[in-house]
């Protein structure tokens, strides 16, 4: 039996973890195995944790505005570690104008404030490899 494993992580220095925690619980309640790794992580820590737990999804949350730097770095490190199939999604205070750039950098989807958690669940179910 293969369960979907999701790593929920907050890169950078932002400590606002309400959204990350709510999403983590909603994913648990949707039947996923959620590895919750907390705040203030470097992209390297996140990528290495994703490798060790062989997760299917990495869900990043960031409200400080540093997403354009940190999200793509996580994707690059995952690839460098040979994790080509991991679905990377992001959420937080992210202006619409930044979303095309993030998608080009390998972030599969970006969820902005007001997104129901069920949308995130549906997206993962539809896109997880």
């Amino acid at each position, binding site marked *: 039996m293969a369960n979907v494993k999701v790593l929920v992580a907050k890169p*950078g*220095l*932002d*400590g*606002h*973890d*309400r959204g990350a*925690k*709510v999403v*983590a*619980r*909603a994913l648990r309640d949707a039947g996923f195995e959620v590895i*919750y790794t*907390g*705040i*203030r992580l*470097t992209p390297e820590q996140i990528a290495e944790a994703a490798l060790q737990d062989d997760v299917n999804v990495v869900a990043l949350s960031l409200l*400080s*505005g*540093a997403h*354009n*730097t*940190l999200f793509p770095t996580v994707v690059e490190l995952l690839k460098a570690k040979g994790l080509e199939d991991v679905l990377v999604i992001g959420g937080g*205070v992210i*202006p*619409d*104008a930044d979303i095309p750039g993030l998608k080009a950098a390998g972030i599969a989807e970006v969820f*902005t*404030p*007001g997104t*129901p*958690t*069920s949308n995130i669940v549906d997206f993962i179910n539809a896109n997880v490899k």
Partner: protein
Amino acid sequence: MAFEEIKAGLEKYTAGVEAKLDKAPERANLAPNRLYTPVDLGEGFDYVEKLGFPGEYPFTRGVQPTMYRGRFWTMRMYAGFSTAEESNKRYRYLLANGGSGLSCAFDLPTQIGYDSTDAMSEGEVGKVGVAIDSLADMEILFDGISLDKVSTSMTINAPASVLLAMYIAVAEKQGVSADKLRGTIQNDILKEYAARGTYIFPPAPSMRLITNIFEYCSKNVPLWNTISISGYHIREAGSTASQEIAFTIADGIAYVEAAIKAGLDVDAFAGRLSFFWNAHNNVLEEVAKFRASRRVWAKVMKERFGAKKAKSMMLRVHTQTAGSMLTAQQPNNNIVRVALQTAAAVMGGTQSLHTNSKDEALALPTTESVTIALRTQQIVAYESGLADTVDPLGGSYYVEALTDKIEAEAWEYIQKIDEIGGAPEAIAKGYIQKEIQDSAYKWQMDIEKGDRIIVGVNKFQQEEEPPTNLLRVDGSVGKLQADKIAALKARRDNAKVEETLAALEKACAGDDNLMPFILDAVRAYATEGEICGVMRKVFGEYKANITL
């Protein structure tokens, strides 16, 4: 009418209404009763004991006798982004447009004691606030602003001592002595562990830094509010109104206990403690929360700590409208939300207020949107009539009943936290975080089930164009700050820096008050990262280990 007659009348009314209702009302899960009467206050409602007069114990109706008939609250707009130069421009603009106090937002590296050049600062420099690396940046930040004329609030916690020292040092350069300085540092580490996340050191040395500041300021910076015990972020993290004030007052109790344990007299520092509330959407619940919080704190200080001075018992509060209630959808609606939240804070009797801008669910605010937010306060102050009389909702059956209810819920939590062993222990055990998370999760699920309506989010949605004209922080700020640090290190007296840092390190290992040592290092232009680095070396770093 006698009490029994009112009761009988209420029963008749209720029976009549129930008989006529043939279907469940749309908002069936509302918490308040349909109607409030004197019955809800109880027969023996004691005006003097429960409410008293403004400026008098238990301060339910307000902390000053005249409230806004004396002067309006301080209109204090939280601002800061990018470099000190950019932020200085915004500060001058706000002061020129009727803002009556400054409120500094620092970027995350500054809040967590890293220089802009630290690897951990990657991508974060100048993003959520202004980047301050040394006294040199602080001098630019307050350039042209006389520090004896303005009161300044700084949202800084773990390294509060360092930023306060920088402020004092800037004042010295302006020829302003420390005893003239007015303002506030947030300095509330417990809520950082519980809800906001910008901690550096473990609890014990953090509490020492806080009591060091209390002691230093009581002697040298007497007009300074040495802490802003903050419920704002607890509420933003998802708590209820009752939890917001309960957990925050429990934190307050822990600070008072720590200061008393450090040998301070309660009346010597308690008058400089201040609070920070969130103004949320439910207007009357918020008003009741403000009123209840004053009553609880007054009792805590008088009965638990034996404070003698009235000032020590007053819960003075800064307020910010709820950032988490701003929606990214139909952002103009946020102007209305902020206006209602402003009304709540004003009817609740706040001492100062920051109003959020409509675009803050999307990015940092533009000058235009900040202006609307400031004008909102001015409209409420000058046009609405809400500020014309003290505690205008005092005596409302509903608001009084709600005030009692919130107070009772707060006491229940405070008692529970006492049983656990106080707020630091309750945070270490994850109790407070868990309560907040449960409330946050319930809130989100209520929205997803449609039990709670947020206009434009889960009802009355419409197609809209992506907003334009958002403030972007230039990605080159990190580089600019790095150049500034390099130039600073080339021109300052590095031997002096080493000497002051060595002295600080020695002091950290001992028991002395650290403020004078930090001030010396700041004056020598040691960077914030260097100063906090020394403290990290001696104190170690706090690691969050609470999961959900």
